[in-house]
């Protein structure tokens, strides 16, 4: 089993690297073809041609595109993503700052959506066509079809502006800004580490609404998929046999159905998590959330391709990594895969 796994691992890793390289080439070329003008964005609309040309040269945009690509690859090989036009910082340090904000939000959202979505899907399947099932289906449909933007605004109108239950846009209230030194970059974790419980509660109050709204959209998908996976299993002979033996409905679900749908479920959760991690652009804009989605959108707007390409690589990498983990999980959870490996 071991040799095979190593070979398989190597094959998948090679696959991952090739995909990343292709992604890189495509993003780079698209970025250079787009008619955006980072130079104009930096030097301003009224700059004279000399200042314009000087900045163009400083950014290396006066070189032929293949040379730019080569230089970029060379930088990448040395772990250098280049400098972001927008901030003047190395892109890697910008991403290191923006990514934790997205990570914190996405992780909370995926936890919420899993803990609500999976049980809801199971119950809906178990009580098919009951009131609960219908409600779950409507909820899922609504979550899937109504844009996050609308939910964000309405959520803010009700829970922030109306009821004052949650904090507004941003990660914390402005007067707490700068009181917590970033260690992990995750505000909830850092504030606890530094014993700033007041800031922890404030940050929680700010993250909870966007997290729930993101979770709702993801939950809609998770519930629907869990329901259909479960329904498929419930009609299988082994379930009927278990029920005939006198196993309770909950027991059937817990001991028989869940293990059988676990593999598919993990894939679904990995995809949802990946989707959330790439930075929910719209949510981040509505909630003024300084995450990777907003960072990349702004970079794209001014044609800051170093930032866009690096961001794309990171997002692509995360997606591929999650896929990779899902595959590994397949091997762990699916007895057939284990058998085959043996």
């Amino acid at each position, binding site marked *: 089993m071991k040799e095979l796994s190593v070979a398989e691992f190597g094959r998948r890793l090679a696959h991952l690297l090739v995909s990343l390289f292709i992604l890189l080439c495509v993003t780079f070329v698209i970025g250079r073809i787009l008619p955006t003008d980072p130079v104009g964005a930096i030097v301003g609309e009224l700059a004279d041609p000399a200042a314009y040309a000087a900045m163009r040269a400083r950014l290396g945009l006066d070189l032929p595109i293949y040379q730019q690509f080569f230089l970029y690859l060379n930088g990448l090989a040395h772990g250098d993503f280049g400098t972001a036009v927008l901030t003047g910082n190395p892109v890697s340090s910008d991403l290191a*700052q923006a990514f934790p904000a997205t990570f914190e939000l996405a992780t909370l959202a995926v936890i919420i959506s899993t803990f609500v979505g999976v049980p809801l899907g199971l119950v809906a399947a178990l009580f098919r066509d009951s009131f609960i099932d219908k409600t779950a289906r409507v909820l899922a449909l609504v979550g899937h079809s109504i844009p996050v933007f609308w939910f964000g605004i309405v959520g803010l109108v009700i829970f922030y502006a109306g009821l004052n239950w949650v904090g507004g846009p941003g990660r914390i209230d*402005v007067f707490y800004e700068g009181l917590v030194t970033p260690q992990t970059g995750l505000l909830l974790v850092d504030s606890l580490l530094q014993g700033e419980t007041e800031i922890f509660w404030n940050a929680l109050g700010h993250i909870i609404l966007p997290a729930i709204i993101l979770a709702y959209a993801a939950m809609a998908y998770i519930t629907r998929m869990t329901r259909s996976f479960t329904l498929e299993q419930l009609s299988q002979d082994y379930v009927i046999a278990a029920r005939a033996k006198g196993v309770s409905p909950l027991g059937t679900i817990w001991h028989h159905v869940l293990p059988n749908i676990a593999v598919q479920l993990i894939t679904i959760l990995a995809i949802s998590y990946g989707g959330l991690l790439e930075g929910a652009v719209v949510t981040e804009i509505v909630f003024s959330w300084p995450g990777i989605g907003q960072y990349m959108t702004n970079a794209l707007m001014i044609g800051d391709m170093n930032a866009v390409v690096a961001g794309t690589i990171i997002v692509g990498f995360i997606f591929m990594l999650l896929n990779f983990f899902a595959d590994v999980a397949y091997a762990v959870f699916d007895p057939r895969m284990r058998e085959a490996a043996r």
Partner: protein
Amino acid sequence: MKHFSKGLFVGAVIGALTISAPQLYAATPKDQLVIGTSLAQVLSLDPHQATEGKAVEIMSNLYDRLVNSTPDGKIVPQLAESWKVDDKGITFTLRQANFATGNPVTSKDVVYSLGRLLKLDQAAAANLKRIGYDKDNIDKLVTAVDDKTVRVDFSGQVTAEMLLYRLTTSTTSVVDSIEVQKHVADNDWGNAWMRTHSAGSGPFTLNRWSPNELVILDANKDYVAGAPKMKRVIVRHVPESQVERLMLERGDIDIASALTASDLATFKDKQGFTIQRIPTGGFYVLSMNAGNQYLSNPKVREAIAYGIDYKGIEKTIMGPYGRARNVPVPENFEYAIANPDWHLDVEKSKQLLAEAGFKDGFSLTLKTIAQTPRIDLATAIQASLAQVGIKIDIQQGNGSEIIAAHRARDFDLLIPQTSAYMPNVLGSMEQFSSNPDNSKEANNAGNFVWRSAWDIPELTALTAKASMEPDPKKRGELYVQMQKMFVEQKPAVLPMFERFEPIVLSSKVQGYIGHPTQLTRLENVTKSETQ
């Protein structure tokens, strides 16, 4: 009955929760001012580099200049307590002031700053380059007489008044030369450091700038004119207008700028809020490419001027953003002429097209930034020009795409906007009336008229003459002549609406007076506890 009581119970719980919910999220503290806006265009806070409006507003509170201008256009002392004008230049006497670091402000700092502006040679340098100062002559023209006396000689292309106005802008901010020199790397004049730090003598210091998130300014307690009333000013990036509106209503921000017209409208007559309409002295413009086979013809340009419903658009689209005006000088400026008789007149417009030989009309593209109110403006222009027989294809894009097309003369029609750099005819009009070399080879992409390929040698000469005329009365006459000539030549850069920037303030905020060239100072802004 059972269900009913259950419903009642749930209702009661929600109700109780609502009433008893603790006020976890208090409004902004009364010694901190929070401004909501879009920081997407802020790329640098180095005053000798950045020229973007929001950046200017922030920088003008971090740095003092030699002189300042009041919102109504008067030149007042800032770091210079007085100045004397002679035939050859201006001698400034500095007052006793310190930088935030504690270093005294000396004439050496002034000389260093103006030199740095031109040698760094970024967009900001255009302010002085346009009137004949450059990196080669600046060391000769700006000199330290003694520790507290600075001499700025004329370049030969400017009058004293025009020079003083240019010295009020944030591009001539005086920086702490000792501090900046500590941070120089690779001959960059400290630019990499200065983009994200401050080294000034203004009422505030830069605590933090997180791009696209927020800017925090701390009060400079030792400011020469006394510590600012606010301990801290926070400028927050709120990209979504509706969200910004909610935050203002909730009290999480005190001032909201960059609201859309519909969100702005909700604050009209609303208790606890006031709308301030800040004039910019600039315009929303219809740029026509005079290199185009149709648009090179003045009759066609006049036909277009008669093909737009300015008054209607002002009422339905521009609202607080603009006022109809076809001369590139706001009506309230001294020597502004009356508006020409351009209004929507389909018959006249058609007739002009026929005279030009295009009876059957033609098609043009119209490029615009996808942004309120310009995108709605484009649609309205498309509709009325269709009646005349000109078919418009609208192409939207983001800022950098559209600006790039404009600079490259790659458009038929395009809707840019302008600002005045000083509150007089020249300050608002110069960019519409000066194009020294229209040839493609000149590649003068920083020039607004060049981009439209509109060749106006006479008007350019007249503008140059006006800017060199020392006698105010004669200069006034030249101003009037310039505007008349502009209208007669059927401009390829057609002003449509004078541009305003409406902002909404919580009534708690006192003493905020928006400055037309974004030099709004915040040291005297206060917040009362109740509205």
